[in-house]
């Protein structure tokens, strides 16, 4: 990535990180306000408030959504800080879990479940966080474009023959007949993924019939 591009990415990152703090403040105020309502309900005598149960149910829903908001903004904040330094030590489990939270919406639009399958022990590599996140996103996008609706994409960091690999694999109960790997590897998006992988010092391969993209990554890069 050239210097100007890096500056642009860092600029977007700084603004986004700042905004996530503002969103957190909004969530904190909603949390305290709904918490105060709960406190008041707790000290209200039974029978004095005829719709108490409905209020409690509603407050629980608000708490659930606040927690969801906190999880998403925390994840977005970490993502926004990605351009701060490169290369850095990255736990592939953290990266995949973060991407699941950030990209699930894209998958949901095609009724696809996106999940991660962490490796044990965790795999840590020294790499460029922005490009690694971009490679994962591109591979998810490629799979979503190539498949019909439904099924599941699993992101799984693992070692294959001692090499660090990030896998994005698709599963569906419906039988897949067409040669999706061939279809994938002839697309512009695939060429774009390979360009990103080349920057990371690695390569992507696709296997079938239910497509799985394997991104082979070096343990360390100098950017």
């Amino acid at each position, binding site marked *: 990535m050239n210097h100007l591009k890096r500056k642009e990415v860092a600029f977007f990152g700084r603004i986004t990180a700042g905004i996530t703090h503002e969103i957190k*403040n909004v969530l*904190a*105020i909603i949390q*305290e306000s709904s*918490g105060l309502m709960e406190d008041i309900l707790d000290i209200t005598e039974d029978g004095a408030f005829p719709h108490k149960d409905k209020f409690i149910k509603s407050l629980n829903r608000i708490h659930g959504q606040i927690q969801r908001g906190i999880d998403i*903004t*925390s994840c977005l904040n*970490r993502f926004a*800080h990605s351009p701060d330094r490169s290369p850095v030590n990255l736990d592939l489990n953290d990266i995949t879990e973060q991407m699941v939270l950030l990209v699930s919406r894209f998958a949901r639009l095609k009724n696809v479940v996106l999940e991660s399958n962490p490796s044990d022990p965790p795999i840590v590599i020294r790499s460029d966080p922005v490009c690694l996140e971009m490679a994962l996103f591109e591979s998810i996008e490629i799979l979503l474009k190539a498949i019909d609706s439904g099924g599941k994409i699993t992101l799984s960091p693992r070692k294959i023959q001692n090499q660090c690999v990030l896998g994005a694999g698709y599963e569906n109960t419906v039988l897949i007949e067409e040669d999706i790997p061939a279809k994938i590897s002839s697309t512009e998006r695939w060429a774009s993924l390979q360009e990103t992988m080349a920057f990371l010092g690695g390569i992507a391969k696709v296997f079938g019939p239910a497509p799985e993209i394997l991104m082979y990554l070096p343990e360390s890069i100098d950017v």
Partner: protein
Amino acid sequence: MDRIKILLVDDEKEFVTTLAERLELRNMNVSIAMDGEAALALVENDPPQVVILDVMMPGLSGLEVLEKIKAINSRIQVILLTGHGATKDGIRGMQLGAFDYLIKPIDIEELIKKVNEAVKSMV
């Protein structure tokens, strides 16, 4: 038992007033300040037992306020509130003498537990 005396410092008015009400419902005596200068004036004139202090504020930062509070009265316990991704501020704060730090948005029960622990540690 005497009510625990707390000073709550945060520049978000809605947050600070609502949290103060919740703490008062739990029998705590709460003062509020919306910036570092106002907080230091209260520490000088009406010292609390515990200060709950946001790290990220306009003007004096939470860490600067913490240092000044400790210089005025080292017995006052300070619990810092940090944003996510700012845990290094919390750790830096503890090096400067903060009792502990919590990540915003906070869990009220966890905050109460920390306040009680902070008061106990003063004895």
